[in-house]
């Protein structure tokens, strides 16, 4: 066991107290007041503690310990190093907002009892923490599976609904396919020593083909968890099915454990990745980013839209990982550090932005009971808190300065600007084009977010029932406020964040980015480039200009404001149903990216008495990849079923044959 005053001990104690807080919910499982008003705020407090401990341990020495729990000769090893610290801070920091929101969120009569839900929720958090601390394959896999299972139960909280059950099944299936790949990857990494501690894996040297196989298996396993193409199909099903705080945890935090795993295996356990490996996550990441954002643009369900947007962000993250591997492999470590910082920064940003947006949809869902964008609208009047705080998240994820989404995007684009210096022919010409794809995805993200915010919160209510919508409760507001504040702070203080993330890149590739050097308010990727971005100055200029303009207009042209009905273009019977729908807003995207979709359309004829318009957009991957595989599995299962004849004499024959075979083998 570690000494009592060490950060590692503090982390473990905090994780254990998460589990305890969860277990305490079983004392009074049906009491909303106890679980909601006591346990979830406690969980938020623990999250805050975890973030503080992780941040203060960032610059400290690497700590390791062996836990007494586990199988007799397989104790669990844990280790706290800068990479774990960064992700623990992400977990703690983002979970504060989500837990605060969740305290006010869960209501009676919605599926699983609140106490049981609280147990699953806190176990989910604790297992994610353990994934980040694990220092051997056994502990890692146990934590990884606990994470998958607890989140499975959370996804299927409303198990009365068949769609949610099938989404949960798909999620569980993909989670296990991924877990098998990760397990196999660890199996290769131990390199014949049969020691499964990460230290042994760091020490073992693999031949190139084996190392490549380990990398590809890890990419498959962690990619399935993160949702990269073509393993993304579960994500837009499972994330929206869960209650909103759980969706926030899954999209905001759980996906980042996959990024953590990828970084851990590639840069720490394998050690020296080959440069061309990077091209695979790079290409997959770029494809995933565009695919995700294009699908997000045509969604009509607000939570599915956000889930596809998570697919896009995962694509961006994998793009950054790919770039880092390429740069590191050819020995350009300063640039690799820049790419890695962009990845870590974006992971942190996405945790805050996406949690904020999912919680915003949760508040809307509770206030209106609607997830369909076509039945929402005008909610900024009824729910000003949720509306304006969600706007912060929307602007951040659309990549607008001076908020946080822009900083990581800026870093990634700056890294791409150097990619033509990679000393490999052809590759150095293709890599800069990746920047164009990232730019396209970022610009499309702006489109998606305007659609998301504009249709939910702006315009007129599309249904009369929306007039009764109420704003979020006090704890829910606090949760949203925490995450929005995180988005702003991460945006305007990039140097402080990068300095913290630099400790992790130093650990992984031995170099910290040189960017955070010059002054505390100005960000520069590499000193010799004389390029900089100063969000605080930019913010001050914009706010200053707005203030001066506003005052000038107010005092010089003091004219009254008169309300009037909107202009109807001479057609006097405009009603809220004539506003653009979610389908309508997605129409240009369907038109431009037509080859991405499988579309079924029912168009009314002009003479129809009761015209009906329907368009269903589905993923081509279902038909092309998953349906054939499912059919194959079904056929294989059917042929195995032939064994089951239902007569005892046949089964006795099987036993007899088995015995004979065993005897023959033994003798």
């Amino acid at each position, binding site marked *: 066991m570690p000494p009592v005053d060490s950060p590692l001990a503090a982390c473990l104690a905090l994780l254990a107290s998460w589990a305890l807080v969860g277990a305490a919910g079983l004392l009074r499982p049906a009491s909303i007041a106890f679980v909601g008003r006591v346990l979830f705020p406690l969980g938020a407090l623990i999250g805050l503690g975890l973030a503080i401990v992780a941040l203060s341990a960032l610059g400290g020495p690497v700590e390791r310990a062996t836990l007494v729990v586990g199988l007799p000769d397989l104790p669990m090893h844990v280790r706290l190093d800068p990479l774990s610290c960064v992700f623990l801070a992400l977990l703690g920091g983002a979970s504060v907002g989500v837990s605060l929101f969740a305290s006010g969120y869960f209501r009676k009569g919605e599926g699983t009892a609140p106490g049981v839900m609280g147990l699953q929720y806190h176990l989910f958090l604790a297992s994610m923490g353990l994934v980040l601390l694990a220092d051997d394959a056994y502990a890692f896999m146990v934590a990884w599976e606990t994470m998958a299972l607890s989140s499975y139960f959370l996804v299927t909280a409303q198990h009365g609904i068949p769609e949610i059950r099938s989404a949960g099944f798909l999620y569980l299936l993909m989670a296990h396919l991924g877990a098998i790949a990760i397990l196999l990857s660890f199996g290769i990494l131990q390199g014949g020593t049969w020691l499964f501690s990460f230290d042994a894996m760091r020490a073992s040297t693999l031949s190139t083909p084996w190392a490549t196989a380990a990398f590809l298996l890890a990419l498959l396993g962690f990619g399935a968890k993160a949702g990269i193409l073509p393993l993304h199909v579960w994500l837009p099903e499972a994330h929206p099915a869960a209650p909103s705080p759980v969706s926030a945890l899954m999209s905001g935090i759980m996906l980042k454990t996959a990024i953590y795993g990828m970084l851990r295996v590639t840069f720490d356990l394998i050690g020296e990745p080959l440069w061309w490996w990077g091209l695979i996550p790079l290409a997959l990441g770029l494809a995933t980013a565009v695919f995700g954002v294009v699908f997000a643009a045509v969604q009509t369900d607000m939570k599915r839209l956000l889930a596809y947007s998570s697919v896009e962000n995962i694509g961006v993250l994998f793009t950054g990982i790919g770039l880092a591997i390429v740069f590191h492999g050819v020995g350009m470590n300063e640039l690799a550090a820049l790419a890695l910082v962009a990845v870590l920064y974006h992971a942190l940003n996405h945790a805050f932005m996406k949690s904020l947006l999912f919680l915003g949809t949760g508040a809307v869902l509770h206030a209106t009971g609607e997830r369909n964008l076509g039945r929402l609208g005008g909610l900024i009047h009824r729910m000003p808190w949720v509306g304006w705080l969600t706007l912060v998240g929307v602007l951040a994820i659309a990549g607008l300065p001076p908020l946080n989404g822009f900083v990581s995007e800026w870093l990634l684009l700056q890294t791409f600007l150097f990619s033509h210096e990679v000393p490999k022919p052809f590759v150095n010409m293709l890599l*800069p084009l990746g920047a164009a794809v990232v730019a396209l995805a970022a610009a499309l993200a*702006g489109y998606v977010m305007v659609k998301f915010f504009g249709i939910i919160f702006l315009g007129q209510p599309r249904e009369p029932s929306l007039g009764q919508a109420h704003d979020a409760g006090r704890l829910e507001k606090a949760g949203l406020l925490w995450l929005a504040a995180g988005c702003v702070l991460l945006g305007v203080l990039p140097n402080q964040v990068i300095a913290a993330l630099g400790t992790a890149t130093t650990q992984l590739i031995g170099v910290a980015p040189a960017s955070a050097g010059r002054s505390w308010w100005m960000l520069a990727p590499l000193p010799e480039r004389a390029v900089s971005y100063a969000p605080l100055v930019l913010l001050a*200029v*914009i706010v200053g*200009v707005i203030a001066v303009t506003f005052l000038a207009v107010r005092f010089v042209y003091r*004219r009254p404001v008169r309300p009037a009905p909107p202009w109807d273009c001479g057609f006097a019977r405009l009603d809220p149903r004539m506003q653009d729908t979610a389908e309508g807003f997605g129409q240009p995207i369907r038109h431009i990216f037509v080859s991405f979709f499988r579309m079924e359309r029912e168009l009314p004829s002009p003479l129809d008495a009761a015209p009906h318009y329907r368009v269903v957009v589905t993923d081509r991957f279902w038909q092309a990849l998953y349906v054939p595989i499912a059919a194959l599995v079904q056929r294989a299962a059917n042929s195995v079923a032939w064994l089951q004849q239902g007569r005892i004499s046949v089964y006795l024959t099987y036993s007899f044959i088995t015995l004979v075979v065993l005897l023959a083998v033994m003798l």
Partner: protein
Amino acid sequence: MSTVAWFTQFLEVLAALALAPLFLGWVNACRAWLQNRRAPSLLLPYHGIRKLFHKDAVIATDASPLFRMAPYVVFGAMVAAAAVIPSMGTGLPFRSAADAIALVGLFAIARVFMSLAAMDIGTAFGTLGARREMMVGFLAEPALLMIIFVASLISATTALPLISERLAVQALALYPSLAFTAVAFTMVLLAENARIPVDNPATHLELTMIHEAMLLEYSARHLALMEWAAALKLFNYACIGFALFVPWGASLGEAGVLALAVSIPALAAKLAFAGVWLALLETVSAKLRVFRAPEFMATAFMFAVLGLLVHLLLGA
């Protein structure tokens, strides 16, 4: 930072604010002459803005605070953009605040707020305009970034004043890559500023509008700010074009008062020429259908990518 640098900064922002409507008036006048019409007064945009400021504002009953906030944000973003574009001098004190990528971000802020404001009232045309504007935006933004990339590969920086400075001091060499990107930039400029062939600034037919459709609900001072911001955007784009493709004449670095004095007529000459060129382009081309706009923008993007490849192949 010297006094001259701060003075240049101040003068540049002031010039942008003051000259932007005049530039718009100049383009309109040139277009009228080319089309054998009598030109309106060059000062017409000023009169329009002044008249709007003196009117009572009419705001739709369903408007949220976002609607009244948006003109100020859009205007603020455009002024901030003007502060980092080296139209007269490159030794700007604010140049470390935002590089060219952040500049693209500033334009994106304006676009997003304008679109959100258009959706706020909840009329069909506002939303229609918003989605078309965002469509043009997401096609133009990558193209603009690629253009900036080519210039920054040549000059090894993404800070616009430094790009301009390094391109200006190099010997007068012909960059084939910059020629391709100049074509791409012209196309992006037309699309982003709602000019023919993508949008028609003079249209009053709602179904074909993009920019104007978003402003349908604005009146008085809010409309004045929006129109002024639109003029500023055109001015800013023109100045980005000068900084990238005709950087000569601007005062470089800490060059002093004399260079600044030279840069003012240089800017005026460039603007005058750009106005004629824009008017000519708009006169000889026809407005595209909305769904041909993606092809137009894809062409611009391809030109920019071609520029990039040419640069990587030839190193020039």
